[in-house]
């Protein structure tokens, strides 16, 4: 049985630069193949080469063998543009990543959906309309004919992201192609919508026998929908195997690294670290027991000693932490009582309604929720960027700092790193250190000296793990992960105890994310900081945060210990949210 699609040694280059090197993979009929990799790995570019949609200046070498409906094997790279156009649509469907920009904004849904049929078939108008309505039903957008007719007349701006992706899916599937190439189709969507779309894709694939190539950087999604996986890194295929084998018996170093980061294997919270240490001890003890039969008596004695010691240690830890908790309880860094936040000056339309939360010293509070639930609005009011709110926000921190989501927009592109790190010091005075205040000594507030500023810059760069030479660089010379580190360094310069992080790792690759999270934890411990951590990634929140607030439609619907809320949600919405998260 010939493969449906076979890439033989496909290399893509832009001008003189080769970006993918000798990519080979196979796909059989009806199979779902996942391609996983970080940004720059070449996954999208390889698929662009297959569909002949490479950006200007792109050239592909190698062979892309495709088995058409008539049973011919053709090389997609060597046929003419005209021929390719026929195949795109009838044989191969494509779904792009950005639902907001992949539909033509000036044409109706019906127009765009029927275009496929008009271009490739000779069906009559009524039949075309019938087929379109059928398709809309299959992707779960409409249930009745009237709703369908209405939808056909709508324009893309009237639909949400999830609805637009389903329209894309309908357009891609309407001619019953043998292959669908989906390039990160759910990355820009909320977790519950993602769940729906993945379900629809699975169903359609089964019903029509369509093969799917699913590109994603999210291993959880790949695990759910694909049967085989291709792992790519820096333009090369690193490993290809079944889902089971990749997840349980990864062979290559990079695959192992990726899995480790994605599975969030390393514990970040104090209590998780304790648990991990305990588990490790248990594991090593059971290993020893199974190995030594005879010497067991002595070993047992020493083991039980150890166990007793460990037990005591753990108990002590607990006692210590209890004491610590008590004193921390008295030190609430932030109290938010019944706060409603507005964007309009008249305070008539609340975006956030009656939110209440507290953050203790040393705590990491997570805020989760889908887009539009009000998480960013709430924290902007907390840090003082939005002054239109009702209710009480009191904090012991004079200037709460914030780390933003998009590393490419949060650093001023025209200023050197050194300048950016010094800026907070230019704008604030040096006050009497607490120790002297306690002794009753008051020094006059003064400006930072040049030497102090330089010293602080070097300290900050070291603290976030960046080389000191970076001070002289401009933001566009740094990668996304490095820029986030600079943003974190900037937030630390003023020594403020409360730092708000708005999706700080969402735009970063999973291995970089790992490093940044570890950095955040170590900084917290070193400088006794408290964080508010907003994320849509529930797994990260569970791993990093002590407590979590779940927001929906501007209200906090559930609050509590992070592990509890994620594993045993009580509120209906929270239950829905947690069940939609792809599990690894």
């Amino acid at each position: 049985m010939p493969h449906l699609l076979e890439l033989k040694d496909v290399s893509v280059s832009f001008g003189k630069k080769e970006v993918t090197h000798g990519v080979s993979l196979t796909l059989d009929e009806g199979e779902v193949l996942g391609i996983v990799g970080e940004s720059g790995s070449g996954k999208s570019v390889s698929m662009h080469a297959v569909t002949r949609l490479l950006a200007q200046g792109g050239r592909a070498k190698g062979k892309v063998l495709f088995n058409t409906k008539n049973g011919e094997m053709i090389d997609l790279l060597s046929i003419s543009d005209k021929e390719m156009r026929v195949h795109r649509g009838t044989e191969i469907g494509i779904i792009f990543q950005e639902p907001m920009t992949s539909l033509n904004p000036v044409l109706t849904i019906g127009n765009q959906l029927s275009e496929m049929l008009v271009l490739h078939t000779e069906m009559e108008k009524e039949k075309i309309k019938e087929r379109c309505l059928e398709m809309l039903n299959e992707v779960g957008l409409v249930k009745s004919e009237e709703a369908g007719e209405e939808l056909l007349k709508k324009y893309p701006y009237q639909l949400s992201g999830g609805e637009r992706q389903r329209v894309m899916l309908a357009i891609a599937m309407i001619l019953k192609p043998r292959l669908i190439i989906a390039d990160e189709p759910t990355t820009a969507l909320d977790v519950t919508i993602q769940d729906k779309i993945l379900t629809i894709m699975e169903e359609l694939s089964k019903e029509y026998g369509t093969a799917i190539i699913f590109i994603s950087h999210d291993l959880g999604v790949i695990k759910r929908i694909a049967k085989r996986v291709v792992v790519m890194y820096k333009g090369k295929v690193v490993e290809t195997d079944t889902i089971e084998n990749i997840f349980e018996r990864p062979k290559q170093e990079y695959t192992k690294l990726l899995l480790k980061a994605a599975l969030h294997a390393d514990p970040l919270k104090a209590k998780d670290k304790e648990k991990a240490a305990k588990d490790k001890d248990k594991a090593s003890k059971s290993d020893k027991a199974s190995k030594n039969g005879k010497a067991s008596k002595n070993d047992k004695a020493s083991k039980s000693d150890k166990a007793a010691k460990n037990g005591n240690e753990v108990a002590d830890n607990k006692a210590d932490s209890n004491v610590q908790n008590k004193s921390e309880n008295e030190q609430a860094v932030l109290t938010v009582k019944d706060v409603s936040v507005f964007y309009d000056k008249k305070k008539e339309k609340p975006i956030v309604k009656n939110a209440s939360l507290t953050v203790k010293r040393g705590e990491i509070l997570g805020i989760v929720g889908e887009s539009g639930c009000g998480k960013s609005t709430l924290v902007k009011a907390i840090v003082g960027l939005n002054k239109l709110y009702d209710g009480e926000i009191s904090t012991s921190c004079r200037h709460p700092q914030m780390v933003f989501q998009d590393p490419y927009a949060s650093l001023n592109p025209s200023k050197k790193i050194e300048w950016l790190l010094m800026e907070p010091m230019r704008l604030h005075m040096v006050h009497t250190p607490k120790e002297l205040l306690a002794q009753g000594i008051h020094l006059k507030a003064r400006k930072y000296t040049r030497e102090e500023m330089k010293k602080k810059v070097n300290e900050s760069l070291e603290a976030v793990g960046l080389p000191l030479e970076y001070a002289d660089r401009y933001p566009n010379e740094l990668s996304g992960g490095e820029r986030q580190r600079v943003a974190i360094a900037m937030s630390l310069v003023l020594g403020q105890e409360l730092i708000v992080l708005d999706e700080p790792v969402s735009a970063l690759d999973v291995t970089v994310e790992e490093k940044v999270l570890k950095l955040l934890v170590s900084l917290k411990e070193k400088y006794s900081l408290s964080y508010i951590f907003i994320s849509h990634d529930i797994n990260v929140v569970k791993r990093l945060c002590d407590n979590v607030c779940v927001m929906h439609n501007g209200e906090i619907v559930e609050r509590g210990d992070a592990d509890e809320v994620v594993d045993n949600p009580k509120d209906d919405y929270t239950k829905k949210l947690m069940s939609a998260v792809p599990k690894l």
Partner: protein
Amino acid sequence: MSKEKKTTFIIGLVLVGFVLLFVLAGFIHTPYNPNTMAASLKFAKPSLSHPFGCDNMGRDVLSRVMKGASTTFIIGMSTVLIGLVIGTIIGSITGYFGGIVDEILMRLNDTLASFPSILMALVFVALFGTGKYKIIIALGVIFIPSFARIARSEYIVQKNLDYVSNARLIGASNFRNIFVHILPNTRKIMLSSFTIGFNNAVLAEAGMSYMALGVQPPTASLGRMLAESQVYLFRAPWMALAPGLTIVITVLGVSLIGNSLK
């Protein structure tokens, strides 16, 4: 920069450089005194001693073009700078703050912009008389609205970006945010509009002088020379060609530089 853009830039630079030589000569030392008349040299054809020939009054055309280019250059530069600086200040403030300030200033802007520039110039001249400095002020004021609008739209985009919010959190005042943080990021657009503005200023000055509203004779001015040479176009075409070509090369060179920097 891509190869294409580099070539464009170099060609533009060469052209502008050529004109700048003329301008420098106009300031320092021209081959002949541009205002010395010589009856024997009337309508002299271009020769080695007079590369651009002489005009209807026997004055050396090359020297007059050099003097005229320097005058045009000063007027053009000053006009653009007035428009750019004041326009950016107005545009940045209105773009950043929005609200009532924006509405009021933009309506004033629109009022100014809705007057045909020639009309405005005429009014100015009627009120304040002609002369080099008066043209500069007249044209400069006319140029303010477009720069203000460009700066404003750029600021509206930039002010919503994260780095601006970050600066505010760190403690930057609005003033500091506008002029220290955001302004450097508008460099590209402002430079682009500067080149376009300079061209328009050159053409505007030439136009006004053509209509005898600008610098007065006997001061040399490219526009004036064009006007005077019109009558003699067929008898002594070099009288019109020299100033005309200079204007074209200046505008073309600056345009090419502006395009290559986009």
